[in-house]
């Protein structure tokens, strides 16, 4: 399925289950997403992570709603399953799509200006360097006997300095490779939204509407 449409679908469903309250639909969504993920060769470690980490907020909300909520245990279960529905719906997208494909389709099919698509992509590929830079900032502060924490303005200050400096270099590099802002582009890799994509999108979205309409528990 086209990554742009897929993200739209996942977000639309996530938004819808936030406004409706159906325990069974939540469970169905979790199961369907889970099976879909399994078919997409997810690593065992990633799967365990998907199940384990959301347990904390889900359990936290459950207990809190159970003890202090006015809507009883059924609503507590809805919230518990809602967290997992969000996570598994998100995973059906992130585990099967790359940010490159998303950027390309947003530019080609959703009319996103190319400077946004390629600018974001260029920056995103610096991710490993960003991890490194945060470590460098912290270590060099430690050398001066200063520990930087998430509440230290200096940590953010230095991170922003690096961002500004790197973006200057990246933008110049892109321009020197022939990137011109606000100019029409031809594409080496063409991503289209096919009729089949629309069938899946409308079909799946329709099924969720029907389920939410008939299953109120």
């Amino acid at each position, binding site marked *: 399925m086209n990554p742009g449409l897929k993200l739209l679908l*996942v*977000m639309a*469903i*996530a*938004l819808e289950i*936030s406004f409706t309250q159906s325990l069974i639909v939540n469970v169905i969504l979790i199961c369907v997403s889970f099976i879909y993920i399994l078919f997409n060769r997810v690593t065992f470690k990633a799967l365990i*992570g*998907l199940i384990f980490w*959301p347990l*904390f*907020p889900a*359990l*936290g*909300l459950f*207990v*809190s*709603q159970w*003890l*202090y909520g*006015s*809507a009883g245990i059924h*609503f507590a279960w809805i919230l518990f399953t*809602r*967290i997992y529905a*969000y*996570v*598994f719906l*998100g995973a059906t*997208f*992130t585990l099967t799509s790359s*940010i490159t494909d998303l950027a390309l389709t947003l530019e080609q099919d959703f009319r996103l200006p190319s*400077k*946004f698509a*390629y*600018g*974001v992509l260029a920056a*995103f590929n*610096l*991710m490993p360097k*960003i*991890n490194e830079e*945060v470590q460098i900032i912290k270590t060099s502060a430690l050398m001066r006997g200063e520990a930087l924490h*998430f*509440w230290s*303005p*200096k*940590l*953010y*200050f230095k*991170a*922003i300095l690096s*961002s*500004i400096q790197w*973006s*200057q270099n*990246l*933008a110049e590099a892109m*321009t020197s490779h022939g*990137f011109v*802002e606000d100019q029409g582009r031809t594409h080496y890799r063409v991503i289209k939204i096919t009729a089949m994509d629309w069938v899946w999108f409308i079909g799946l979205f329709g099924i969720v509407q029907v389920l939410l309409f008939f299953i109120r528990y």
Partner: protein
Amino acid sequence: MRKFSLKDVITLTLIALFFGVIYWILGPIYTTLTAALTPFGLAPAANDILEGVWVMAGPLAGLLFRVPGSATLVETLASIVEMFIGGQFGAAAVIAGLVQGAGAELGYLVTGYKVWNWLSLSLSVIFVTVVTFIREMIFYGYSKYSLGLLVMLFIIRLVSTFIFSGVINMMIVKMLQRSHVVSN
């Protein structure tokens, strides 16, 4: 009114990524805090205590870039990044990012994108607090709590957002201004 250039887009994305990495450090703290408060049924408070850190990027980007849409864009980007790294909230993270970005944006919007000081920053902080709290009422069932608990959670969130997205953001901006990276 200035528009986004390629360099702005790259800078905003890099800032979003940097904040994403710093939030990553926060993950274990959030998990520990949530686990510790769960037996008392107060786990949502963990969310409210740390909320101010998670929404920092929006008000900050608004004040630094002074381009309409900066706050929304940076928060949306940060949430997409968070979803790809595998945050705890999956698909909801992107919706959450859009909401808190738009909330932060409101502070600058209501001042007509003309006021760039503590006033618009404070407005941004207040809007982001209110808007994200409404989001929690819907998404995470806050609306079913008693009024007392709601008031307590709201005050925690306001104080946290004021400290991190207000005071600390202002300190960051002052540092950048002193080093002449951004104009006054």
